[in-house]
């Protein structure tokens, strides 16, 4: 009997094997905000998560860092915002965090786990709800 679905593990954003890409080289611009698909089922398990996409019938495992990024994809945050959030948790510099976040967002996009959102930030990749942006508004 065949297994009914194909399942995959999304690579952790900070793993050595994760492909890295320079900021902004994906299909989205630096000002794009990211929103996770509403129809994806999420089960949090010991700080990690199991995602299930009902249309592609794929399941994906997120590690703790990936789950943090996934949670931050609420339609208001840009990649820059999410990278900023990671800086408060991990001892990495902003360019590294941004590369890792964008790489992971590419992965989420490739698996159709993100919804399209409208752009809403300036060319720096800092969105309107970013502390830096709020400070200059």
């Amino acid at each position, binding site marked *: *009997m065949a*297994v*009914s*679905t194909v*399942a995959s*593990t999304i690579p952790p954003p900070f793993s050595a094997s994760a492909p890295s890409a320079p900021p902004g080289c994906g299909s989205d611009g630096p000002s794009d905000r990211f929103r996770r698909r509403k129809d994806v*089922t999420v*089960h949090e*398990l*010991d700080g*990690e*998560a*199991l995602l*299930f996409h009902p249309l592609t*019938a794929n*399941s*994906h*495992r*997120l*590690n703790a860092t990936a789950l943090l990024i996934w949670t931050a994809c609420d339609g208001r945050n840009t990649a820059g915002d999410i990278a900023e959030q990671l800086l408060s948790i991990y001892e990495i510099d902003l360019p590294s965090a941004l590369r890792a976040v964008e790489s992971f967002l590419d992965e989420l996009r490739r698996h159709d786990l993100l919804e399209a959102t409208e752009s809403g930030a300036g060319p720096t990749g800092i969105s309107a709800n970013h502390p830096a942006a709020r400070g200059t508004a």
Partner: protein
Amino acid sequence: MNHEPPPETSFYQLGVVRAAINTPIRRFRDEYRALYYPFESVAPLPNAVTVDVRPARRLLGRCLRYRIDVNGRFRFSPTKFHELLPYVEWAVNWELPRVMPEYLQLHASSMEFEGAGVIFAGDSGSGKSTLATALLARGWRYLCDEFALIHTASLQLHPFPRAICMKRSGDHILERLGLTTHRGPRYLKGVKGYVSFVNPLQVRPDAIGCPAPVRFVIFPSYSCGAEPTLVPVGRAEAALDLHRVCFNLFSCQRPGTDVLAEVVRGASCYRLQSGEIDQTCALLEDLVTGGTRSAVPRVRSLVAC
């Protein structure tokens, strides 16, 4: 001129699975009954998986091809008599996801030990049946060697005590455990080659386990000569691996991933590197008993076929 006797139907209640074997081939009917007679039901069983086995092509009175239908659908056409039993088993398995949506069905062996359900999930060749047989001989109770049937509402593992199918490579294990196989003869099972069947009730009269909550999920892999080891695995990873071996993720009564997530939440999950069978079983017994019962007396076969 057709000398074919009329088909007769026998009913079997194999744990939560009901099967009706309908065949005019008396030799096959006897063969099946010899393996499953403790589970035979005198009364017809409603909603049974009905397997029709009949000769499809004859030449000079000799059957050249058989035909196996399940619930009215054609499934297999084996050419040899000793292929029939494995194909009938396979045909019943194939039908379960359709007829039993109240169970999430995993390609895994399942056992019960003192009320705790244990799932051994892995690909073919990972040693699921061998482990099930060896643990059964050491006092564990048998649920199934090919399926973990998880009730979607209660999340309990349920028994489907089909005969344990052992590949030829498991012969020395059976010999060491002192277990006998069903009627001795070999059956031919597709790519697995020649297999034999072990009737769990011939190992011990109380061999069949009761419904039990899943307390352990084990992913075994076998390596000859390896030191048996257990490595904890995260629950998300375990759920993903169970997803890979699920037969009816989309056709069971509840969303399959919800069931899997709940199952792993209540279980401890490990990868097992299995090696020498007694050491491997002792390691598993240490795990499920918390180290309080590492030497379970081995039970030898009670009934010789």
